[in-house]
């Protein structure tokens, strides 16, 4: 047996383990009798743990080097390891948060767990993609799982409608992306992203070829914008967030953002950095529109899930500030800091989003959906600790120190200012002021109003613990942001 082949492919081991683990969970679930599905749940968590250990191991062995596997289809670098690790953590948290909620609604079936694991597999493939092919495969694997999860509650017309919308628009987005990629393939003659970069560097000097490339680029950016959910490709976000069961909204609002960020980096930075002057302008428009529409539309929402959906749009617009500040007049000096800022923003956003949606799941109970603003009324009187955790999450989303969200804003604004985009930074902070209003409104409801009902909040102890850790992590990162920032910086530097 040839061991070197085996050893060379170790960087793809987490994907293999996850694939096998997901299949095992699917089969084992047939034998699980209990309603709580402890067996399947534990298998899933175990698989995630194994993946995490493997990823840590791979990272510790590889350090900052980039490894190409499967003839350049797959890449393993520090960024992929960090993002994968973040994805495991967020999926694992999502499993804990959603368990009781789904149980109460009779939706905690094996399918949920298996689909979640396969979606994660898709995300990991996206994160490690070094070819248009793998990237598209990963994207479709993730998307198909998510479509199905949105429709998990098949008796609910809202869920079904949301799933339908998600599917149709998602398919359109995939189509756009595929079309753009095929154009770039036509111009460069290769599907491998690192080779595309070399070809683009050669071709972008010729105006004719450049036009061809930019034509493809427009579609690629549109496809990415769909996946990130930025204006004007955001229409699916509010409806899907609103219509899906909250547990699934939590899933959609967390880890997929990491993978969407990853493919944006892979395509635009790894592949098309020589066209930065073009795509930065597109991102600029997307960013400003998202911050404006997201923040303003969120004010008008009375449904929490819809409000958080618009808030996602605004946050993704903010994240783009980092991505569009990398290259200044052909100078690449700013790029590591700028992309690291965007990555830091994405990771922090995922953590905040998990905290906020996790709280909604925690406050929901059998026969009661916590999804309207009124449902948070007087939370401080009912349970000061969870009100405090939600307070941290809200101030973090608003970007008020000393919470993690502030440093996320600080780093992307810093990138924009050092790229000379001072007016853009001013526009961004003005919209973040608008945004502060609706986060404050939630704090107001929790702290200043009297509760509608004073029933104590039930909940599983593992979930209580995790929610507390999640909230305190936002505060801890707010006090000591250096480690996570340095990690993002190091992983972007290794690109």
């Amino acid at each position, binding site marked *: 047996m040839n061991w070197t082949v085996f050893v060379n492919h170790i960087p793809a081991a987490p994907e293999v383990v996850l694939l096998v683990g997901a299949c095992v969970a699917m089969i084992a679930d047939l034998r699980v009798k209990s309603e709580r599905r402890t067996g399947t749940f534990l298998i899933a968590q175990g698989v995630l743990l194994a993946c995490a250990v493997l990823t840590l191991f791979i990272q510790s062995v590889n350090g900052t080097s980039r490894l190409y596997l499967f003839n350049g289809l797959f890449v393993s670098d520090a960024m992929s390891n960090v993002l994968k690790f973040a994805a495991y953590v967020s999926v694992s948290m999502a499993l804990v948060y959603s368990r009781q909620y789904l149980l109460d609604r009779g939706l905690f079936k094996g399918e949920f767990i298996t689909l979640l694991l396969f979606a994660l597999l898709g995300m990991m493939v996206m994160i490690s993609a070094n070819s248009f092919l793998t990237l598209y495969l990963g994207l479709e694997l993730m998307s198909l799982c998510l479509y199905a999860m949105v429709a998990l509650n098949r008796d609910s017309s809202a869920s079904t409608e949301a799933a339908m919308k998600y599917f149709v628009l998602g398919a359109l987005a995939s189509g756009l992306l595929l079309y753009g990629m095929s154009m770039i393939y036509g111009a460069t003659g290769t599907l491998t992203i690192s080779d595309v970069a070399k070809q683009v560097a050669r071709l972008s000097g010729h105006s004719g070829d450049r036009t061809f490339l930019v034509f493809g680029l427009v579609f690629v950016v549109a496809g990415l914008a769909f996946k990130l959910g930025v204006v004007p490709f955001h229409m699916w976000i509010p409806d899907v967030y609103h219509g899906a069961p909250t547990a699934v909204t939590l899933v959609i609002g967390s880890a997929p953002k990491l993978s969407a960020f990853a493919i944006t980096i892979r395509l635009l930075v790894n592949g098309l950095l020589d066209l930065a002057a073009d795509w930065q302008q597109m991102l600029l428009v997307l960013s400003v529109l998202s911050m404006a529409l997201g923040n303003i539309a969120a004010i008008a929402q009375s449904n929490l899930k819809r409000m958080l959906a618009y808030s996602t749009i605004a946050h993704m617009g903010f994240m783009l500030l980092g991505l569009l500040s990398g290259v200044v007049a052909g100078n690449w000096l700013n790029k590591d800091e700028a992309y690291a800022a965007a990555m830091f923003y994405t990771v922090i956003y995922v953590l905040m989003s998990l905290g906020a949606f996790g709280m909604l799941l925690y406050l929901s109970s059998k026969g009661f959906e916590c999804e309207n603003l009124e449902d948070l009324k007087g939370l401080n009187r009912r349970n000061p600790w969870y009100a405090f955790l939600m307070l941290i999450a809200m101030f973090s989303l608003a970007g008020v*120190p000393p919470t993690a969200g*502030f440093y996320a804003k600080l780093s992307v604004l*810093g990138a924009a*200012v050092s790229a000379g985009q001072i007016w853009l930074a001013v526009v961004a902070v003005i919209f973040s002021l608008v945004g502060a209003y609706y986060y404050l409104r939630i704090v107001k409801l929790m702290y200043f109003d009297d509760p509608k009902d004073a029933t104590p909040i039930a909940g599983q102890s593992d979930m209580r613990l995790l929610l507390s850790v999640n909230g305190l992590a936002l505060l801890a990162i707010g006090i000591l942001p*250096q480690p996570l920032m340095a990690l993002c*910086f190091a992983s972007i530097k290794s690109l």
Partner: protein
Amino acid sequence: MPTTVPLLSLAIWVPIAFGLGVLATGGDKDAPAQRWLALTGAITGFLVTIPLWTGFDTRSAAMQFVELAPWIELFNVHYHLGVDGISMLFLLLNSFITITIVIAGWTVIESRVGQYMGAFLILSGLLNGVFSALDAVLFYVFFEATLIPMFIIIGIWGGPNRVYAALKFFLYTFFGSVLMLVALLYLYGKSGGSFSILDWHKLPLPLHAQQLLFFGLLLAFAVKVPMWPVHTWLPDAHTEAPTGGSVVLAAILLKLGAYGFIRFTLPILPDASRSLAWFMIGLSLIAVVYIGLVALVQTDMKKLIAYSSIAHMGFVTLGFFVFNAYGVEGGLIQMISHGFISAAMFLCVGVLYDRMHSRMISDYGGVVNTMPKFATLMMLFAMANCGLPATSGFVGEFMVIMGAMKANFWVAFAAATTLVFGAAYTLWMYKRVMFGAVANDHVRGLTDLNGRELLVLGSLAVAVLWMGIYPKPFTDVMHASVNELLRHVALPKI
């Protein structure tokens, strides 16, 4: 003076630690224990700031008690603390005011006592952080973080219109400070990657950039001061906040804006400051004269004192922008003196409000007949508020008017009208509330100050008289730093 004990860190983290401790003690059934714990925290917090005063080297203009440690290396951000003659007194003032707030809220606050006390202690630590931060990011973090406890304080324990007031307070100040954030990031870029405020003091900047930055910072600080025309949040916030909230707002939070001018705007942007001084003096005079007139027509005591605060803070900014030692030191003295006087005035209104549940002047009359001790003390504070000699209010106003006189007679003339308006609105209010026949049965049933209230108001009275009769210890502390600042501001750095 080198020291091994991190005094400034203690001044920041001791109150915060106690605040978190109080928060953690649970619900209202433990209220007595929470009160005592909070008092212990406030007193310990004050005690750790006393060595700052006793160990301070008044001859040096340099930063003292400096602490420096890397914090966010990626952005070259440091945990950099230090105080000079300008900022040191505010730490003491703040820690002292915190004690009075804890005592003043002892029985008045009945629901969620732990959260109330905890919020004030945390706020106190954060404010100490603002006054001692020498790193711009650290400063910004503390500056912004103070909004959270204050928002909660106004919103939970405030009056009927508290939600509106709390949101207005938060959004107004947040608006100012986010623009400051952009300005700070711009300075970070210009200085080649440093967030150190002291490095920025030496940074040469073209006039155009200075002026842009001036307006970026102006909004943040002007909202906080508050200067006309961005003052409208203050009367609302003061009126709706609980007594303790009004006290800390008037005594300390308003000083953050003025402190920002003197720590950031003047030394970092001296040329812009000089070229735009007319603008700042104009706004300050509007605050002094126009807001003085507005205060005259108020029917709500808290609103009246709130407007009086704006007028007094106008004096502070006026003093800063005439660029001489009298003006700047006068402004600083005025800030500290106003910290005592406004705190005392709001506590006085609190005393009445706790008994009558009304802040309307028209509901009172003849209070002196039933509360003689209270009337005596309030007389002192009212006199101090209009700048009577031998009270602290006189020293600052006199020095600022002197400074303004050196700069321009008519500016000094306009500023001096405050002595008339100040006396008019304060004493007229005092007359209507205190003197005359007993207005109604509620007033007849009033009881005079209890021991706790007497302690709080008495200690403030001592402070007001001390500063008024013998201000030298206070001015001595400032002297070296103010002269250094003025020397620095006089040099162009274009």
